[in-house]
């Protein structure tokens, strides 16, 4: 059985970082968002907890893309407080991921503009961002996730921004991604292709075998 640091990490931190297990549950339709929202609106805390479990990683990842440092926590908390009071206004449950992502973006931008007053964006100290040191630790390990992550962090910021939104669980539709980035919907597909090509060029040769093996093991 393949067991790299990625596997160990996935198991050690529980639901927060188990997108594959989560994706399976999503796909098998065990959790219907409409039914969950209905129960939330009736005051059911456990349904709310299910929503947090299912969409928490999405909100967190989107917020992290704005490099807000410690303010990330406050942005994420604001988003969940908002949802708690807007849950009964979300008419189309399919749009919950989109609503959460755009709300996160809006809150992050408000805060980041405030930050930009004291520190210009070019001076923003990436090194103080705990996510960066976390990434560094992982990429020193020789495995597929580490390689992909290392390649990702070497991409230009624009590509990172797009790819982060393209790989969320659950996924965001192109319309939402386009709105969040202030681009046209038609540009997302071609940009995705270009960013993926750049990412592939940064990956070491022969990674595919490892990737295949890991995927096979994960599926078993």
């Amino acid at each position, binding site marked *: 059985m393949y067991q790299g640091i*990625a596997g160990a990490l*996935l198991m050690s*931190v529980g639901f*927060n*970082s*188990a*997108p*594959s297990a989560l994706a399976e549950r999503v796909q098998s339709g065990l959790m219907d968002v409409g039914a969950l929202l209905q129960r*939330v609106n009736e005051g059911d*805390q456990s349904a709310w*907890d299910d929503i*947090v479990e299912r969409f*928490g*990683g999405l909100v*967190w*990842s989107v917020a992290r893309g704005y490099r807000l440092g410690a*303010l990330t*926590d*406050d942005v*994420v*908390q*604001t988003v*969940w*407080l908002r949802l*708690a*009071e807007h849950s009964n206004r979300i008419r189309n449950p399919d749009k919950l991921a989109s609503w959460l992502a755009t709300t996160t973006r809006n809150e992050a931008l*408000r*805060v980041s*503009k*405030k930050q*930009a*007053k004291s520190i210009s964006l070019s001076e923003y100290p990436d090194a103080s961002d705990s*996510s960066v040191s976390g*990434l560094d*630790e*992982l990429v020193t390990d020789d495995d*597929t*996730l580490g390689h*992909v*992550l290392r390649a990702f962090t070497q991409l230009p910021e624009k590509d990172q921004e797009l*790819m*982060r939104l393209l*790989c*969320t*669980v659950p996924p965001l539709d192109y319309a939402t991604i386009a709105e969040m980035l202030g681009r046209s919907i038609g540009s997302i597909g071609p940009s995705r*292709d270009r960013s*993926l*090509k750049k*990412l*592939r*060029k940064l*990956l*070491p*040769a022969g*990674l*595919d*075998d490892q*990737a*295949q093996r890991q*995927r096979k093991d994960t599926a078993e």
Partner: protein
Amino acid sequence: MNSSAPGGVPDMTDDDLLATLGQALAAADPMPDHVAAGARAAFTWRTIDAELAELVFDSANELAGVRSEDVNRQVTFQAPGVEIEVMVIDDSTRRLVGQLIPPAEMDVELVAGDVVTSQRTDHLGRFTFDLAEPGPVRLVVLGADGEILVQTEWVLF
């Protein structure tokens, strides 16, 4: 996807690669437990009976090029029949000044997590709070019997 790219990964489809990236990001940078706990606890703050004053204007949303850096953050909340205008007048002390429109002498509260600060507005509906801690806050306007008349959306100053 062909394999002509140098150092390319011929066997991974684009979708595979994105899924792997998603896994990598989630493994390297998962939502911390305390953030998840906060998200779950957000539900206990839900108050569906009170009128919600929505954020209808936020100077932080205006285009950066248009907004002078010296201008204070201004926010307007609106509910049927009432507006609440708020401004952060000093970024260092984080002093919040605001006004009810139409003006009225009312009890208002600043809710910041578990910390609630109360105040009576003056005859022009004005109030002042100091934002002691970072984090999302909301304003609440109380009626004569202490009931919640209107409360704002949560906002991060």
